[in-house]
């Protein structure tokens, strides 16, 4: 793949910058001892060449606008275009974060109202928009746990329980927040093992992190029993909101026993994923955890919006300013447009599409957990024949023109294929995807080399990950 460094560059581009209009005095010169001596070897592309290069790169990418992107737990739904336009209005995009509140009444009102709406969606009391991504929300939420027990003098509560189906960010966030983790097994029905949970609950446990529905795509049918048991043990319940698309508009985490819940605005509320961010991971919390939320907070008084800093119990800040405001604007526009009925359409069609696809595929792949799924489901690529793996299935899907599902996650399903179609896919697309998956299952038995050689139609053939791990090349030599 050619980088911009291989393109014809020129270092004498004129007209890029304004002519200097102030006198420059030699006594203002940067002292010699600070001046850059190391050469700066950055080539410049003239704008036409630059546009050709990045347009060419973009065509090597596959996004939601190109086709089905059934990446489980990532909710790759269509991103409405109007939201991008509104977020880039100059009154928002040209506003400095240190602006006085009087200059920022519109954006503060928007962020405040978004917080109110998110609180209602979660069925919880207060919202903080600072976290820049889901994992950042997890970390921020667990800091509230930490401060809550610290203020209660309950300093020996240092453990976080995690179902073994949890997203990898959950244990990593728990560690970052200074907790140790304890794994709770999943039953053969794909539910949290409640007796194992009960025996793990003691006064060293600060809380549990749950994903609802779980990463098998199954609703925890005994969720109230779980959260009651955790609360009865004096611990708190964190809900990972990656899978909110399954029940938005129909049910609320606060009604399931959540004390802290994070949203992924880039998933459920349709803001673009950007190739890996920027996202946004606001948290909603129960009232008694609100004193510990990060500062500053946005307060409303008689239609006037302010930043409030006075919060002696706050955990501090987890972002430079107010989080990813540009992303929050898009999510707000989406909520206004959808309204209550639209949000219900989201979960209705997300679950309909997932169950439909599951029904089309269950005779052709191992489905470890039968029955209703929510917005996603997990198949296993085991025993397809021909000695092929889930990775081969994923790569072969590219040849059929689809982005593969999430693979090898959750860890508790061997050779997992985690499929989340989202509500914005049509029956026709799902039918085509199912036909491709079924054809691949047949190929695995009859022509397994087709899978092992895949992809053959992608911009590159299968890339050597081992080589990248053993001998990583992490930067261009730039003429060295």
């Amino acid at each position: 793949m050619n980088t911009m460094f291989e393109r014809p560059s020129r270092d004498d581009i004129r007209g890029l910058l304004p002519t200097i209009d102030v006198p420059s005095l030699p006594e203002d010169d940067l002292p010699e001892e600070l001046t850059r001596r190391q050469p700066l070897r950055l080539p410049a592309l003239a704008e036409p060449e630059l546009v050709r290069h990045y347009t060419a790169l973009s065509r090597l990418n596959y996004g939601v606008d190109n086709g089905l992107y059934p990446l489980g737990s990532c909710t790759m739904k269509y991103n409405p275009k109007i939201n991008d336009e509104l977020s880039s209005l100059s009154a928002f995009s040209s506003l400095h974060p240190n602006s006085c509140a009087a200059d920022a009444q519109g954006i503060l009102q928007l962020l405040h109202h978004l917080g109110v709406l998110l609180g209602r969606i979660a069925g919880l009391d207060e919202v903080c928009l600072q976290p820049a991504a889901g994992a950042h929300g997890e970390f921020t939420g667990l800091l509230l746990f930490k401060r809550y027990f610290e203020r209660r003098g309950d300093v020996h509560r240092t453990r976080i329980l995690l179902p073994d189906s949890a997203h990898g960010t959950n244990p990593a966030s728990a560690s970052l927040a200074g907790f140790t983790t304890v794994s709770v097994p999943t039953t053969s029905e794909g539910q949290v093992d409640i007796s194992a949970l009960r025996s793990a609950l003691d006064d060293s446990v600060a809380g549990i992190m749950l994903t609802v529905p779980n990463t098998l795509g199954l609703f925890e049918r005994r969720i109230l029993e779980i959260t009651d048991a955790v609360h009865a043990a004096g611990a708190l319940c964190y809900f990972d909101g990656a899978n909110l698309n399954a029940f938005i508009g129909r049910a609320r985490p606060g009604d399931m026993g959540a004390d802290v819940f994070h949203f992924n605005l880039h998933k459920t509320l349709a803001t673009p994923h950007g190739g890996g961010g920027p996202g946004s991971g606001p948290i909603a919390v129960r009232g008694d955890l609100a004193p510990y939320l990060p500062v500053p907070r946005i307060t409303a008084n008689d239609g006037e919006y302010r930043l409030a800093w006075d919060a002696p119990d706050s955990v501090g800040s987890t972002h430079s300013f107010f989080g990813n405001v540009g992303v929050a604007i898009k999510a707000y526009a989406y909520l206004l447009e959808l309204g209550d009925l639209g949000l219900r359409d989201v979960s209705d069609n997300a679950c309909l599409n997932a169950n439909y696809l599951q029904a089309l595929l269950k005779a052709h792949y191992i489905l470890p957990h039968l029955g209703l799924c929510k917005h996603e489901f997990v198949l296993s690529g085991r025993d397809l024949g021909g000695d092929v793996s889930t990775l081969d299935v994923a790569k072969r899907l590219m040849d059929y023109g689809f982005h593969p599902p999430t693979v090898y996650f959750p860890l508790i399903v061997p050779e997992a294929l985690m499929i989340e179609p989202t509500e914005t896919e049509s029956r026709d697309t799902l039918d085509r995807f199912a036909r491709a998956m079924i054809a691949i299952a047949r190929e695995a038995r009859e022509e397994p080399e087709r899978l092992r050689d895949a992809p053959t139609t992608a911009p590159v053939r299968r890339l050597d990950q081992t080589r990248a791990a053993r001998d990583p090349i992490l930067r261009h030599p730039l003429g060295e």
Partner: protein
Amino acid sequence: MRFVVNTQADQRRMLEAIGCSSIDDLFADIPEEILGRFRPLGLPGASELEVQRAIRALAARNAEPESIVSFQGGGVYDHHVPSVVRSVTSRSEFATAYTPYQPEISQGTLTAMFEFQSMICELAGMEIANASMYDGATSLAEAALMAARVRPGGRILVSEALFPHWRRVLETYCWAADIDIVDVPISTDGGLDRSALDGEASALIVQTPNAFGVLESLAELGSSLGDTLLIVACNPLALALVEPPGALGADIVVGEGQPLGLPMSFGGPLLGLFATRRELLRQIPGRIVSRTLDTAGNAGFTLAAQTREQHIRRERATSNICTNAALCALAATVFLALHGARGLKELSELNFRKAHYAARRLVEDADVELAFSRPFFNEFTIRIPEAPERLLEGLRARGLALDPPLAIPHPQANADPLLRIAVTERRTKAEIDHLVDSVKELL
């Protein structure tokens, strides 16, 4: 809902295939008790036109952008964002993709990330860089945690002239990780007081330009620290003019990438920069892209060193970061590709010259004093002989926006309050002169 493609007829046929009689049946696994507690938002829904109207009305409640001349800074600045940057990042093949877990159909994102890493290494004078963090503040906090893994010791030395809003994030992360922060005071010239450096630590954090806008001298700092790692927080635009921290012994370089083609957006999304030495690869947080080969022997790019990351290593990962700021990194890549070394130096020089013109005129014509004698880049700090609120309000009434008063006191006891002024290439001579004249009249 207009983003659903299926018709009611489709839905009926799909329900049939599933074996359900209604959509409600799909939710039979959620306990009745939970469904019964549900309360709607009370939002009616709206057409695109109505949403546009509602949000434009909110935008109109902000100050009109043309009515503000910004001298604000502290990591986020009013720089020009070339049109081509947004044009490239708006391409939906970039914008609507996710983390490139499947490299064969993500070569666009991965190639750009590799370019980004190469460019950031070059600017910072470092060997490796990751593919982005959320913002400069969280980059710095993660650098502190990384240093504490590499050099366990439990304390981090931090210059008092670190941006206070970064300091707050650093404190929050360090509280969680049980790492002590030890302040290193500032000399009266605005730079780090090296004589106050005392004893070993996991790392020393220095920012340059610092919260006062002052450029620190890093010469021989790294080599004087022994086993203590040197973490340098920087402004990437300044690195076109000043010797990069990597050439001066820095072990980790972090920064806020907003000056490289990102709008201010009321403080987010931003772009965390993170670069370090190659031997520390296994400890770096975040995504990192490597060149590799495909089965036909052609070059391509893929995520690398993933065994550090949360989805593999879980509670032992180097960070919990998953979604980062990939599209912002793409913006910075395009911005740097457009300017190249020469354009970037010229841009950096413009910022430098205009800030120095503003400082000189304020001293000579508005009778204010620079708070510090050390060199600065595109922002500097002045002393105000009175509480600054009245001055700030007066300036704002004339269309001039400054940062609120600095929350860090001058190292001299009983010194006057401090105001920081940032000047970018967007500020014209007329705007700077207007600032100077206004300060003169108001003081």
